[in-house]
């Protein structure tokens, strides 16, 4: 039963999110608002119920599988991709590399004076 309760919490938050998005005309997808609803709920509750953790982490563990059905939809757009092939490839490579470099640089600069968390020490030797 806890698994079902956990799943119900996730679907319930998504449902609330959808209602809020439609009611308030928010420019955000419903599940994103559902995520905020759940976060607020967890803050109030003070802990993650076991069933919710099991179902939530189960879903997150297989997150990449959940992308597959939408990803297969790329086959419908082969003509569009062919038409814009080079712009798409160059954009994805350049933009991804830039995003990685800028984010890593900005964050390491902003945290340079922060005390290290002792729990992190073990991972230091990794490249």
């Amino acid at each position: 039963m806890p698994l079902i309760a956990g799943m119900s919490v996730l679907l319930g938050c998504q449902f609330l999110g959808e209602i809020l998005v439609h009611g308030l005309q928010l420019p955000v997808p419903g599940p994103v608002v559902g995520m905020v609803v759940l976060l607020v709920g967890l803050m109030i509750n003070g802990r993650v119920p076991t069933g919710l953790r099991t179902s939530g982490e189960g879903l997150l563990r297989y997150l990449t599988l959940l992308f597959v059905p939408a990803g297969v939809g790329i086959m419908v757009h082969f003509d569009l991709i062919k038409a814009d092939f080079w712009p798409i490839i160059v954009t994805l490579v350049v933009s991804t590399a830039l995003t990685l470099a800028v984010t890593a640089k900005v964050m390491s600069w902003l945290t340079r004076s922060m005390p290290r968390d002792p729990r992190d020490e073990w991972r230091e030797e990794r490249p």
Partner: protein
Amino acid sequence: MPVPALDQLWVYLSASPLLHLLVTLLAFMGASYLNRLLGGTPFLHPVVLTIALIIGFLTLTDTDYATYFEGAQFIHFLLGPATVALAIPLYDYRERVRRMLVPILLSCVAGIVTAVTSAVGVAMLMGASRETVLTLSPKSVTSPIAMGIVEKLGGIPSLAAGMVLITGSLGCALGPVIFRLVRVRDPSVQGFTMGLAAHGFGTAYSFSSIGAVAGAFAGLAMGLTGLLTAFILPPLVHLFGL
């Protein structure tokens, strides 16, 4: 007459959602196995391989995407609750997040602005169509959120999902090289960066190749990036006159 019977069976099976649901799961397992055989190369991400296998199968059996999606929608539907579930890692690291709130928020905004402006800018310079530019704009965001954003902007949600996937596998391949180039070693920074630039793929990569803290920071970055991008992206894209 076994031949027409088999034929009828195929007609029956391919019309039920069961077949394509099964095909999706089998292709995913097969692709994961194949990727392991190839030494877990980031250039052939299991999900990209899964999609290629399924497209091959659908082309061979002359099935259209709408028919396939009848079955696959059961898996697709779970993206909603999975997005909601991103609140759990966020909650788990709330103390750390509170302590590092300013650096986290500033780097997240810097990362999102870089991701969106570079994607839109490069795509426009390369002469992509308006639809393609809009579809590429949220490429660093996990696909349920990216699809929602693109739908609201007037791009093509299912194509956006494909762009997001390619970005994810590119991020896993480029990440280690970029970290060496910019000399960033801190695992929490590496994880955060991977989650921001390469969403779920970067998060999975951080957990498996950098460590638990990196994984948690990646999950945090993925959730936060999705949330903030949904608000930052539309006005940012309008700056480009789109």
